[in-house]
């Protein structure tokens, strides 16, 4: 798990609960606290662009890599490094910018874009409002 913020830490905890052996990487030492006091997995302090840090996290043995740092461009590069340099089969990358998410999906990166998800859901929610016109409640 590269990037242990709100999203990364929650995914790490969830996967660990399902039996995965998880190591989280974050630049901030304080990010370890997000994993809770009972965290049994690994934790490495450092930047995901640094191959020495990735090596320490055991990327060469990883079955899956999730990249969710706060920087889209960092995520794009780290995701491709995991895929192409280390041959990790399952690489999932969180990108906030829908255009870059779409572009890199075309280049073969598995991208998840929460912004696009929000756009779709919000649009859908407004369409759902439109279906049965709501009568304002009248005082009788």
């Amino acid at each position, binding site marked *: 798990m590269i990037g242990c913020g709100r999203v990364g830490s929650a995914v790490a905890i969830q996967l660990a609960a399902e039996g995965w052996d998880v190591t989280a990487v974050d630049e901030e030492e304080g990010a370890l606290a997000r994993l809770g006091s009972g965290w049994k997995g690994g934790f490495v302090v450092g930047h995901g*662009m*640094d*191959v020495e840090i990735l090596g320490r996290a055991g990327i060469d043995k990883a079955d899956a890599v999730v990249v969710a740092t706060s*920087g*889209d*461009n*960092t995520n*794009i*590069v780290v995701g*491709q*490094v995991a895929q*192409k*340099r280390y041959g990790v089969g399952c690489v999932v990358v969180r990108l906030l*910018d829908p*255009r*870059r998410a779409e*572009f890199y999906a075309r*280049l073969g990166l598995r991208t998840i874009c929460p912004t696009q998800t929000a756009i779709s859901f919000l649009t859908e929610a407004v369409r759902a409002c439109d279906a049965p016109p709501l009568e304002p409640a009248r005082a009788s």
Partner: protein
Amino acid sequence: MYVILAGGGKVGTNVTRSLLESGHEVTLIEQRRDRFERLEAEFGHVAMLGDATEISVLERAGIGRPPDLLLAVTGDDEDNLVISQIAREGYGVAKVIARVNDPRNQAHFDLLGITLTVCATSGILGLVEHEVPEHGLVRLLELRREGLEVVEVQIAAGDPSAGKPVAALQLPEGSRLISVMRAGKAEIAVGATILEPGDQVLAILEPGKEDELRHALIRA
């Protein structure tokens, strides 16, 4: 020609000035407003405010024309990589040159096919090594696409290769001596060339073979 530059720091500003002076058409993208205002004061409409890693910003800069050349020279390697990839893979820009800030990131640029890179730190370190050689082996040229490099070795008295013909040396596989410079004159190295103390030898080799080559030629 038409050139898009991403990053209006010292490098981007000076390159823009030179390109404009040579009569080229340039768009310079800078995301920091304070910097952009200074650039706009000097370059006018050539300067553009925006994050060049955003595809819409690149489109406004005319990435779709496409430009003859794109230079990604921001202070962030991940940004330079993404800008270069979008230009090459997304818009077919034929020539992309990227700046590498941290030499440790060079491998990422190579991995992602951004072959034209410039790294000031590596250049300076190369010069330091050339002026103050520490390991007896100076890297002169990296042929990145070919996966080869050219190095220079100075032979001293007592070195294992001194007094021996090239053919008798135990050179590592994937390496070859090119030339021998003696008393200001260079000669192509052949099997019968005998190395002497004071010789400057040029060799071509695959990266990673430096140590083996060093052991074959000089005292470690």
